[in-house]
């Protein structure tokens, strides 16, 4: 098994084209359809601007968009990291005590099922119109996939491994540190990947409320602001920016996970 890639650069380009080509073609077809609909139906710009108008609006508002991307990205990343830390701790507690699991797991499910738009105003009353509130909302949105996944990983231990630790008289802490936590890492990665997309959604939803009448910079704030002025082209540009942010965060988690999982399984199998 070799670490080096025996393929030539040319064949790798061909492989990449084969891999990404269909998605690029779909994007181009969607753009062309959008342009045709805008032309063909003589849609007013306020309702459906042309792609070029959206691009123009993005350039025009690039400073605001970049600032908002930074603020939302920071809140989403902070919320995701906090959810990973908090969720992992909760999962360790769940894996160590059936009683704790039975008592608290329903409330973790509650975090998943409660409509975030319903509790965001409440959180603002408690935490204020600030960055912290956006992070809290993001944590709430991201927590369930992490807890669900990591708890499963900590508890789904191969019987042979458990037997091995019992045979050599391993204590609970030895089993946790040497077996359960390492075994749960791939599950943590899976949960983090799921939550990375949710983190951006959580941050933007929180900003809809936090940015209301304040100088908070964020994509959610910009969106409500531009919606108020019917700046549809800028609004669509903000939607694209938030999508890119979600993709960026997912890609970042994917890169970190590939590095982490290199120790667990052959990276080729992880693709």
């Amino acid at each position, binding site marked *: *098994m070799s670490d080096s890639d025996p393929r030539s650069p040319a064949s790798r380009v061909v492989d990449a084209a084969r891999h990404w080509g269909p998605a690029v073609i779909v994007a181009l077809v969607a753009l062309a359809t959008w342009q045709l609909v805008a032309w063909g139906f003589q849609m007013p710009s306020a309702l459906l601007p042309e792609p070029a108008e959206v691009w123009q609006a993005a350039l025009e508002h690039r400073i605001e968009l970049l600032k908002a991307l930074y603020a939302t990205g920071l809140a989403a990343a902070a919320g995701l990291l906090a959810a990973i830390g908090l969720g992992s701790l909760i999962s360790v507690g769940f894996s160590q005590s059936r009683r704790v699991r039975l008592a608290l797991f329903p409330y973790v499910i509650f975090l998943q099922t409660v409509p975030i738009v319903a509790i965001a105003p409440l959180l603002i009353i408690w935490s204020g119109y600030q960055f912290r509130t956006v992070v809290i909302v993001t944590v709430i949105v991201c927590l369930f996939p992490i807890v669900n996944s990591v708890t499963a990983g900590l508890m789904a231990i*191969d019987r*042979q*491994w458990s*037997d*091995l*630790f*019992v*045979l*050599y*008289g*391993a204590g609970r802490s*030895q089993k946790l540190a*040497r*077996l359960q936590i*390492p075994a749960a*890492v791939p599950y943590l990665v899976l949960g983090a990947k799921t939550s990375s997309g949710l983190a951006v959604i959580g941050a933007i939803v929180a900003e809809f409320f936090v940015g209301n009448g304040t100088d908070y910079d964020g994509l959610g704030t910009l969106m409500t602001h531009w919606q108020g002025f019917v700046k549809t082209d800028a609004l669509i540009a903000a939607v694209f920016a938030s999508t890119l942010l979600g993709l960026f965060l997912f890609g970042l988690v994917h890169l970190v996970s590939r590095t982490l999982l290199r*120790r*667990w*399984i*052959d990276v080729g*199998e992880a693709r």
Partner: protein
Amino acid sequence: MNEPVPDDRPAAASIHCRAVTVRFAPQAVAVDRVDLDVSSGEIVALIGPSGCGKTTLLRAIAGLQPVTGGQVELDPAAIADEGQIGFVFQQPGLLPWATTLQNVLLPLELIGRGSRPQRRLAAEASLASVQLADATDKRPHELSGGMQMRASIARALVTHPSVLLLDEPFAALDDMLRNDLGRLLLSLWQRQRFTAVMVTHNISESILLSHRIAVMREGVLETVIDNPLAWPRDPTQMRTPQFAEFFGVVSDLLRGPADSPQPETRGGAS
């Protein structure tokens, strides 16, 4: 220069199962009043149809499966202390995030035996004994199936156990690897003289590697038969008429009492 972990084990222990019973439910008796004695330094092969309770009995001997009746005694009893029983599982069961050396070090670290350099020396020696001295830094996915099983044997033997329990260790391997690992197990036994119980489905393997063969059926130990094959053992013995004749005897036993005459048996069977 660091000294390896001192080999302070007593002479290999003997195993005494007294009316051992394991029930998973009132009507589900996995092991039914099994009496079995395994002498010090003896290898007993445990064979029988799938689901007959072989693995459950083996786990009960290891202390991994609580018994619902009877008892398992080890003599001397102190060998039940951590590290004196080695277990080779059906699958290698190596931790995928650890290197081969780290996997073999694990039992010593869990029982806290020896200093760190001593543990490393012992693990390296154990890996060398299974011809894996060059694989210390490899991870399990970089090893072949046979190498993984050898690493698993090295892990079981790193504590110099008095008792070695093997649960169909070579079941997933092809015939050639199975023979190689059988030969390796015999050479390890020649050096360490542990007491062993090996669960297997393979009649040839059970004959080649054991002093006695115990046949189980539906949770009951039906018979224990002496293995007449001469020691030292070698896979070439599998081509002898004596091996073929004994193979027939064991096959008849596996087929059951209704289909074949009962062979002469020795004490220890229930």
